[in-house]
């Protein structure tokens, strides 16, 4: 279970997050809505331990990780708001990128990657990520996050660049992947269709959870 305890993030005088307490148990899908600039991305960064909160703490299975990178490698699938693909690598290479850090490379990773991309509607896995459309890039980013069935998925507006039809499809894939693996899913989104699929939706406003 991912848990944020009384987390505050301050940047100088500015309070970006204010005393957030939130729990995402395994198998549960939690959505975060909120206007632009309300701190949604910051909240996901804190949850993924990319950002040390000014106050409060983040725990996974009840403990604070002493090796956030290692924890992310083994535990987290991250969909970034602007995808963060490596444009010079192929779509497939981007999906397989996290495995490059691992000391081992599991089974037929490339085969699974190609299958996953096909499921997402990416027919040319060897095309450079930099020349893909935004919607395609978004789907590659999602494929990268769910390929290794991580127990925690953090997704920042995963359908924002997709049309309603594709968005709905991809949202279903994301949620199915989480549910199948019994993963905890924390999604930031404006997309009502996606939020409607969540077990629970919270709204962030001015850094405070309603």
């Amino acid at each position, binding site marked *: 279970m991912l848990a944020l305890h009384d987390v505050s993030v301050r940047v100088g005088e500015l309070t970006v997050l204010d005393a957030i307490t939130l729990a995402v148990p395994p198998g549960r899908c939690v959505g975060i809505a909120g206007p632009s600039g309300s701190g949604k991305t*910051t909240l996901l*960064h804190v949850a*993924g331990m*990319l*950002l040390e909160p000014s106050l409060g703490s983040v725990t996974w299975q009840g403990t604070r990780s002493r090796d956030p*990178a*290692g*924890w*992310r*490698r*083994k535990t*987290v699938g*991250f969909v*970034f708001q602007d995808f*963060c693909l*490596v*444009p*010079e*690598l192929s779509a497939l*290479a981007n999906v397989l*990128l*996290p495995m*490059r*850090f*691992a*000391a081992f490379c599991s089974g037929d990773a490339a085969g699974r990657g190609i299958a996953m991309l096909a499921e997402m509607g990416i027919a040319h896995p060897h095309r450079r990520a930099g020349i893909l459309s935004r919607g395609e890039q978004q789907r590659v980013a999602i494929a*990268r996050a769910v390929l290794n069935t991580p127990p925690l998925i953090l997704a920042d507006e995963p359908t924002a660049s997709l049309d309603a039809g594709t968005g709905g499809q991809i949202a279903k894939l994301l949620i199915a992947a989480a549910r199948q693996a019994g993963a905890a899913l924390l999604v930031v989104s404006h997309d009502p269709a996606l939020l409607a699929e969540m077990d629970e939706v919270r709204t962030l406003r001015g850094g405070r959870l309603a």
Partner: protein
Amino acid sequence: MNPFPMVLADWRAMRGTAVWCIVLVALAVAIGVAVGAQERALRQASARASDDFALLIGAPGSQTSLVLASVYLQVEALPLIDGANLNRLAADKRVAAVAPIAFGDVVNGYPVIGTTANFVTRWGRLAPSEGRVFEAEDEAVLGSDVRLPIGAGITPAHGAAGAPGKADPDEARHRHEGVVYKVVGRLPPTGTPWDRAILVPVETVWETHGLGNGHARDPAPLGLPFDAESIPGVPAIVVKPVGVADAYALRGQYRQGGTMALFPAEVLVSLYRNLGDVRAVLVLASALNDGLLFLSVLLLVVVLIGLRRRRYAVLRALGAPAVYVLLVVWLGTTALLAAGCLVGLALGWAGSAAAGALVAARTGLAVAAAPGADEALLVGVLVLVGGAMALVPAWLATRAPISESLRS
């Protein structure tokens, strides 16, 4: 853990910059390598050129002129020294061998040098590669680079050497009419300016200038001793002393009494020391070198930290251990530096060979600018230093705050 896909992606991302980094580093390294290799080659070649000239004796005047004229055949009018010294030296038991060196004539731009058969073979060290050494007054032996056939008849002209192989228009007017040498042999290459000389008996040079042949009778057996009542003067005498102590004693003795004596090797060393121009060029070149190298590395660091902050933050956000990011950045940077260094090494050697060819064409001094361990070592050290410096951007990439970098 496989960093290479990311390293390749990084290079693709910074294509233009990467090429410029390699070019800059290569240029900087090439300058250092070329200067080093050229300087060494020149030093070796000129030391080799003075090999058979242990001790030179001439009339008082410029030491440099005497060395340049006799060793490098950069002939200018030198004051003459009394020919009787030849006999006196030949009789000296501290002297193993002695020979005159007389110049002032030219054929087709090749200098004509009057000496003895003994010095033509470099005190017996060389044997003609074709034909034989001169045995009569009207015979000539060619240096390896003189483009004339064996058996040719040649007429010398008074004057200094021009462009070798090309007769100066002046040459025709100053020709010694009636004097004809027959070419009887050719010497193997020595890699020195003497490869462009036409060697004749000193007796003939004297006679051409109306000074007799140095002997009491005519014809007489060539070479020492010269038994004429008055022996014509020569511009230079080359002496092979028996031992080192003899060399110093002879030099001491012939420094006085209207003669000048010197060790060409010593003059060369002091010449090197005093070549302020060359040193200035070296200093400028190495400063330029360091500047370029510094600039290119700085460029690399700026590019790495600025442009690619976000890339490495992504890797870390995806769970890359610090050592992976460190490897990716370090390998990428170091490989660029190493590539630049290797290209520079090749460029430097090529440049040095080109400069050597130029020097050889101008002076006949075979400057063998061969790749040397010195430059390879220098480049090795540079790669090591570069690799150590590349740790800085690599370390910075593992330290930057992830969340902030992702927003940039």
